[in-house]
């Protein structure tokens, strides 16, 4: 029998490289599979979203200017940090979802591997999706993929960690910044993942993570004029229509994905075409 005091963790949001509580002061309860209390994460409000978008916008041009090599290195660094803390993530996933340890372990390992896989895409994107176009004149004509800007994402409920990584990594690898709403039922690994990000040389504001209710935050993400794209993979199919209509008002590109593939990266890139005179 130990006399130690139970040291409970406060799960907060991750905005602009810091861990603030929600401005609304609201929380909600997370219970384990047997109904026992686990934690009180923040119930983020639309104003937290607004703050996160301001941070993401401020960080975007700097992140976009980082070299592809550098961005790949930083994504790889996230994988390194996650690898070192695997045990904690396994415990959290088992605690919240009640899956077997082996299954949780597989999810965390897959998450690390997925990050490494996305990191590898960074310096290959422009060769694979760009082109040197034939034109009838004394010019070179290039098409290169460019970042879209600030992208919002709704992470799927399950798997909570691997799903979150699929909602973050493909967006940022091409130079976008992201505001992601984590799994509502299992947000703990998302907030622990924020601690991994905070120690991985990711510039403040490039990744911002909120926890809360999808149907409360998604409409504000869709209508926000300063969000350029929206990944709704984690949003229930019933809400897709309303969100697509709200997003159409401001010409937001809205996509939903079923799997992790390079298309997920390219969806949030735009093609820029450059003419350059030959001989100069």
């Amino acid at each position, binding site marked *: 029998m130990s006399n130690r005091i139970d040291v409970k963790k406060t799960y907060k949001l991750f905005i602009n490289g810091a861990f603030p509580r929600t401005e609304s002061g609201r929380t909600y309860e997370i219970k384990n599979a047997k109904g026992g209390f686990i934690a009180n994460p923040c119930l983020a409000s639309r104003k937290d979203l*607004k703050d996160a*978008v301001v941070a993401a*916008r401020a960080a975007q041009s700097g992140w976009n200017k980082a070299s592809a090599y550098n961005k790949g290195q930083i994504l790889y660094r996230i994988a390194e940090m996650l690898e070192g803390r695997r045990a904690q993530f396994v415990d959290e996933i088992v605690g919240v979802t009640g899956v077997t340890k082996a299954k949780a372990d597989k999810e965390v390992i897959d998450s690390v591997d997925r990050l490494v896989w996305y990191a590898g895409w960074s310096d290959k994107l422009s060769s694979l999706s760009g082109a040197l176009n034939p034109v009838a004149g004394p010019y070179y004509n290039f098409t290169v993929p460019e970042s879209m800007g600030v992208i919002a994402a709704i992470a799927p409920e399950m798997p909570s960690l691997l799903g979150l990584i699929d909602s973050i990594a493909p967006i940022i690898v091409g130079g976008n910044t992201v505001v992601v709403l984590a799994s509502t039922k299992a947000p703990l690994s998302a907030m622990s993942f924020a601690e991994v990000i905070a120690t991985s040389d990711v510039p403040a504001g490039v990744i911002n993570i909120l926890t809360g209710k999808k149907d409360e935050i998604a409409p*504000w993400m869709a*209508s*926000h*004029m*300063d969000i350029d794209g929206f990944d709704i993979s984690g949003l229930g199919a019933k809400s897709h229509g309303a969100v697509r209509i*709200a997003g159409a008002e*401001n010409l937001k590109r809205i996509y939903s994905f079923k799997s992790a593939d390079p298309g997920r990266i390219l969806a949030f890139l735009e093609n820029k075409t450059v003419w350059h005179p030959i001989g100069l």
Partner: protein
Amino acid sequence: MSFYGLVDGSQASLKKYLAALSGVDQTGADARAAMLATRSIKITSKRWAIDTAISMVDLTTLEGADTPGKVQALCAKAVRPDPTDSSVPSVGAVCVYNDMVAVARKHLDLIGGAHVGVAAVSTAFPSGRASMPVKIQDTQDALDAGASEIDMVIDRGAFLSGDYIGVFNEIVQIRELCGSRAHLKVIFETGELVTYDNVRKASFLAMAAGADFIKTSTGKVAPAATAPVVLVMLEAVRDFYQMTQTRIGVKPAGGIRNTKDAIKQLVLVNETAGPEWLTPALFRIGASALLNDLLMQRMKLDDGYYASPQYVTID
């Protein structure tokens, strides 16, 4: 000059007047400013607050790289902050360096902005390190070019070394020069005055010397218009009103970049000096980036969704 019967212009009387001031409780001022910053403003009041704040902005550009073109663009924005919405009020004034005053005045008159004033920063802004004849000539230039408001800096070195009468006499001379042609705003650069006691002292010194406005900062030094400093200055104008029945204006400048900050300033004014000060004639906010954020928050209230900086002008 009357000096409101508070001082007779001699060193002895000024010393006595300043020595009689009560000290500022620094912890109390910090706590009160922090407490007032937590006031929640509801949507209906917010709309009023945003429009009031816009009408109080002294839209400022004080860069070495200012060009006539940039100043003209600033003037256009001052008259019609949102070209797509004519219900947005004009700002209080544009604030420019002396050599741009004529450009600004001419352009404002040309585009229907005769009601928008031109404020000139004078007396060797921002350091105030020049001889008195130079400062007088500097101010004279601005007045001749059509400035309706003069933002002068005090000699902080003289103030900090205790030469209060020197600072006082400089303000008196510039006040005389302005006469009825221009309002005089006196800039303390509170970031260099070190203590709240000094801020209060400088406030009373400037008010007795004839300032129409007292202004926190040049915008070139940080910290600038922090909430406790503005609180101390608002308490000073409130106390001065009780002594003399004269209302002196306050202008925080520097560091007020978003709507939240601006509304906090309005709360400070209302709760400290009183609602009589909630007019551009008695309260101004020196800012440049603030105006865009006010416009974006105004759009949010109108449209129901968050706005993007891509829909307001870059300046």
